[in-house]
């Protein structure tokens, strides 16, 4: 297979600087979907539109970035507090996905930081 499943934090090529570099047909250009493809099998952190975050292992995705996730923890931030839901395997609609990251620390710690910062 052409694509590598394991996530490599640093891409082998330097980032392109602008339109000029982008317009060259650079074979090492990394497509956004390739970046997600490298996360397959890894634990990822998905931040949704509207006070919702999910952490789980990425099993696959499609052109709409609908995702199949495994061993998922869902964090909902409501006026009453945080609600945590554990889920076995889900198909997440890509429509409300804002940010996808490799999971490194708990969403709790970051949201707490945000609260402290105001």
């Amino acid at each position, binding site marked *: 297979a052409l694509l590598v499943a394991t996530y490599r934090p640093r891409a082998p090529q330097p980032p392109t600087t602008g339109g000029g570099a982008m317009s060259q047909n650079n074979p090492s250009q990394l497509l956004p979907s390739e970046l997600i493809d490298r996360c397959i099998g890894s634990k990822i952190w998905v931040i949704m539109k509207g006070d919702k975050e999910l952490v789980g292992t990425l099993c*696959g995705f499609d052109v709409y*970035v609908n995702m*199949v996730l495994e061993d998922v923890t869902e964090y909902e931030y409501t006026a009453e507090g945080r609600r945590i839901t554990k889920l076995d395997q889900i198909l997440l*609609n890509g429509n409300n996905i804002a940010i996808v990251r490799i999971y490194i620390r708990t969403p709790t710690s970051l949201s707490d930081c945000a609260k402290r910062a105001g």
Partner: protein
Amino acid sequence: MSTGGADKSGSGGGGAGGPVKTPSDFLKSIRGRPVVVKLNSGVDYRGILACLDGYMNIAMEQTEEYVNGQLKNKYGDAFIRGNNVLYISTSKRSLTDGA
């Protein structure tokens, strides 16, 4: 080049996951199984998944409607239009706790 389509068969040895499972694989695998469907509004529907398509339109049987984790309604058959669906989950385990 494969860019997230249904033809990623070779990769996926990165972690605990095993083989790659795309959204279309998932849809095929869950028909007839008990599922939890969460809508964008936050309402949960639990029941047996009778039928679904690529738009995430869903037909369910023995459907129970949960609002804030509390059972509000039961429907013998229910149709959910796909645009409202946040996620479809296999319902092996599921628990909630407030904080």
